[in-house]
């Protein structure tokens, strides 16, 4: 119970402090227009607090009272006073003198506060050299950017101040100096800052409004960007750097040595990551022939519709587009299945999972929208997302597992497969029942086709016919050559050859290359919930007026879907697709847990983990991470730009 309470307090504190900081900052800058002096005092106090806080945090200031609080408070008070005073002085010369003088006074405080056993002995050569060089660089930069000598001069001043601090303290030998040098080092640097401050003017009312308004983008962006820089950008830079290094010859990983681009060379020349040697089998894949057949079908449909269209122009329709899309989908799958390797696998994952999860998520979101028990259906689809991955991996192993033929199957898929095999080889009543059911289904479909044809619903009639054809094929296989998981073998029983029919299972996780597909299905199972939730939120946000208006115009549900809902959620589709592509590109745990990359299922992220964290080969691991990152960039870039254009 204590634990619960202390945890609650921690949570409230963490959330509360962050929220209060944000609100206070906003309030502070809104004071710039109304209470200019108060605003300046607070800003000055904050800068002083920060400056002395950092000095004290690095244990450069002597211990007075409670160590880490005393000097920052002094700094805050001093900073507040200086800024407060400066906010009221408009006369340029007085302002200049006050600024330089008061900053120098802060320098005196700093010099006096410096820890007595750590006094710097200045190296004047280094200090002056740094001051001048940095000043010139800043001045030149200022000139280049602002194109104005006065402003460039101010830049140069800032450069001088920074250069002095760098040179004086950086070149100093600590512990051997005296108090005088401590004063000098601090006063010169801060006085230079003061000079710079003194040259500025107090902003007029418009200027203050600008400060107020202009500050907001920083206040709104700063927290997010801080997290992004610390948590992502710096690690990314480090990763890019590491990817150019490798271990020493003796295999130690503490001291990495320069390796140029060789890690990348290894990735792209290694046949584990790219293997084109099997491309000759491409035309041996039945997927290609199915795809080619569908292509021809779509061409035929286009041709027929063209010939029969009243205005003599070709027109896209559901009947021609869907086989066309499916055809290319199948051919793409065949390409991925023939070319092997880690990188190809990754592309295959991205292609298949992103498309399937998006389409299924959208379909479910649309179908579930406004149905009764909507929330039940959505929760059940969402459920896989909520199940922790370790749990999901176990259940999918039980979905795919194969058992020896003489044992009952415990895997769902193999059980069904073997069950169908038994149906098609058995003579008992179950087989007859199956045949009867199939005949019934064919009859219903044919009937439906007839009715639809008479109702002039040609697409419906055609799809019913197609369905009847498919079931008919199944029927043929069942009564003819057989279908499902069985095989026949000839054994010797008492010296005589006997042909036996035994169940035959599929090793879903082991049969290359389609074991990849079975792994992808797991991710689709999980990620469809993701797509569905986001689409669902987006569809609900489509203004009801639009839909009502379309209905008044006599649009059907299908038309509303394509012409109202889809355009309204177009950018959301972009978000979902982009996110899924990235998410799938980074897929790692499914492969790691289910096959560990064996049987030709390795993907980049899992390979990266293995190299970097299991083998401590950080160079190669980082190079894999960079390849992963860069290969997604173009897709992301394209998607985001397109969305930005859609918005405007």
């Amino acid at each position, binding site marked *: 119970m204590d*634990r*619960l309470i202390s945890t609650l307090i*921690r*949570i409230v504190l963490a*959330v509360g402090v962050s929220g209060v900081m944000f609100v206070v900052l906003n309030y502070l800058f*809104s004071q710039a227009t109304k209470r200019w002096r108060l605003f300046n005092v607070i800003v000055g106090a904050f800068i002083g607090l920060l400056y002395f806080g950092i000095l004290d945090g690095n244990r450069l200031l002597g211990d007075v009272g409670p160590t880490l609080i005393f000097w920052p408070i002094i700094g805050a008070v001093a900073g507040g006073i200086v800024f407060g005073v400066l906010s009221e002085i408009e006369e340029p010369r007085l302002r200049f003198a006050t600024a330089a003088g008061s900053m120098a006074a802060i320098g005196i405080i700093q010099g006096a506060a410096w820890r007595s056993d750590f006094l710097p002995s200045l190296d004047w050569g280094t200090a002056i050299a740094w001051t001048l060089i940095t000043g010139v660089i800043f001045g030149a930069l200022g000139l280049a950017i602002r194109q104005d000598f006065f402003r460039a001069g101010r830049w140069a001043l800032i450069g001088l101040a920074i250069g002095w601090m760098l040179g004086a303290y950086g*070149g100093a030998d600590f512990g051997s100096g005296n108090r005088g040098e401590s004063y000098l080092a601090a006063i010169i640097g801060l006085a230079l800052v003061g000079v710079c401050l003194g040259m500025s003017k107090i902003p007029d009312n418009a200027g203050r409004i600008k400060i107020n308004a202009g500050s*907001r*983008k920083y206040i*709104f*962006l700063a*927290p997010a960007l801080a*997290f992004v820089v610390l*948590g992502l950008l710096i*690690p*990314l830079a480090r990763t890019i750097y590491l990817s150019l290094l490798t271990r020493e010859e003796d295999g130690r990983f503490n001291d990495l040595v320069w390796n140029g681009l060789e890690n990348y060379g290894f990735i792209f020349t290694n046949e584990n990551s790219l293997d084109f040697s099997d491309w000759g089998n491409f035309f041996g894949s039945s997927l290609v022939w199915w795809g080619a057949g569908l292509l021809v079908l779509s061409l035929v449909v286009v041709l027929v519709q063209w010939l029969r269209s009243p205005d003599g122009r070709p027109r896209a329709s*559901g009947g021609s587009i869907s086989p066309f899309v499916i055809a290319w989908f199948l051919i793409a799958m065949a390409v991925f299945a023939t070319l092997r390797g880690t990188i190809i696998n990754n592309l295959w994952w991205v292609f298949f999972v992103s498309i399937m999860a998006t389409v299924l998520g959208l379909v*479910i979101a649309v179908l579930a929208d*406004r*149905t*009764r*028990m909507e929330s039940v*259906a959505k*929760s*059940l*689809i969402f*459920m896989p997302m*909520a*199940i922790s991955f370790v*749990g999901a991996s176990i*259940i999918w192993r039980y979905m795919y597992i194969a058992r020896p033929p003489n044992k*009952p199957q*415990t895997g*769902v898929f193999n059980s069904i497969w073997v069950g169908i095999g038994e149906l098609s080889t058995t003579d008992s009543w179950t087989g007859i029942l199956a045949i009867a059911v199939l005949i019934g289904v064919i009859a219903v479909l044919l*009937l439906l086709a007839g*009715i639809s044809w008479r*109702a002039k619903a040609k697409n*419906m009639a055609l799809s019913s016919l197609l369905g009847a054809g498919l079931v008919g094929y199944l029927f043929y296989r069942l009564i003819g050559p057989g279908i499902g998981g069985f095989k026949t073998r000839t054994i010797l029983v008492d010296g005589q050859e006997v042909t036996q029919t035994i169940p035959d299972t599929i090793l879903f996780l082991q049969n290359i290359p389609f074991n990849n597909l079975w792994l992808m299905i797991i991710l689709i*199972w999980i990620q469809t919930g993701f797509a569905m*939730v*986001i689409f*669902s*939120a987006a569809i*609900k*946000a489509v*203004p009801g*007026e639009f839909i009502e208006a379309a209905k008044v115009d006599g649009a*059907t*549900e299908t038309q509303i879907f394509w012409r109202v809902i889809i355009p309204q959620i177009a950018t959301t589709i972009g978000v979902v697709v982009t*996110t899924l592509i990235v998410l799938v590109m*980074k897929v790692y745990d499914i492969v790691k847990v289910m096959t560990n990359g064996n049987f030709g299922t390795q993907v980049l992220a899992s390979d*990266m983990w293995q190299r*970097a964290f299991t083998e401590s080969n950080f160079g190669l691991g980082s190079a894999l*991470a960079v390849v*992963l*990152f860069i290969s997604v960039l173009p897709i*992301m*870039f394209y998607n*985001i730009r397109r969305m*930005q254009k859609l918005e405007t």
Partner: protein
Amino acid sequence: MTTTNSPPPTTPASSSTGGTSKAGDASKEKGVGKIVYNTMRSVPTWVLWILVILWTTPTIGLFVNSFRDRDMQRTSAFWTLFRGNFDGLTLNNYREIFGTEADGGFWDGIINSFAIAIPATVIPIAIAAFAAYAFAWIEFRGREWLFIITVSLLAIPNQVALIPLLQLFSNGAHVTLPGLDKTVTLVPDVGLVGTSNAVWLTHTAFAMPFAIFLLHNYLSSLPKDIFEAARIDGADHFTIFWRLVLPLSVPVLAAFAIFQFLWTYNDYLIAITMLGSAPSEWPATIKIATLSGEFGLKENVLTAGAFVQTVVPLAVFFSLQRYFVRGILAGAVKG
């Protein structure tokens, strides 16, 4: 079975129809035709429920197996239960999870999970909402590019950031100035490592790109008129954000909250990295995973663990789902 209640009665609402047919003809049909046609009209609902059943099957399998001992899980299929095979039914898997004594037991693990997941959900939402608002509605130079760069970082495999962040949390950040041989402490070691703070801070950083991406997409689609009206009334950005944007973006905030909570609550990798040798701070995921041991020794425990774990995210989903409100913009859009 349920039927869709929205399609107009004259629409053959099959997803495969072009929808241009005159369905009225069909509804005049008598007998079988009418029955078939009415069935076809509810095809979307049927498709939905078939998908739902497909999606639920693995979960049901997991659920059944969570009540069976290890040997039964291995040798007999879960659906044999429905055929009356009640062998090996046991509550031991659950008992093992709730009964663990290691490092404060399971309930401490759940509390730790909350200590991570709640800040890791609320804080990124707030921070990302600010940033998304700035990207969408505050004009400044380089906005588009800053946005692209931020969102591109979504593509970084998070694992590469684990070591740098762990270094930051365990030792602070120190920079050695080039050429001067002096080291500056930028961030002191404040003892974050081994606390849940380190974990949610990490989650917050990793969540930023996606959160900004998702929220920005929504915020930028809000109608421009409401902002202009507010500006004319003299509201500053903070007021607009607080009074207008937040209430209007409840659905998307709810959607993101669901995922962020789920990911952080179910996370294993970041938590074990940041809390490696502080087992008293371990969230439930690690507790359950470690219970199962190496080499799948006690994999049976994981089946029950998966369900115990799922309860909380599902509750979050249910409670936040009602914020997916239809027509939240209804008043804001005129035509």
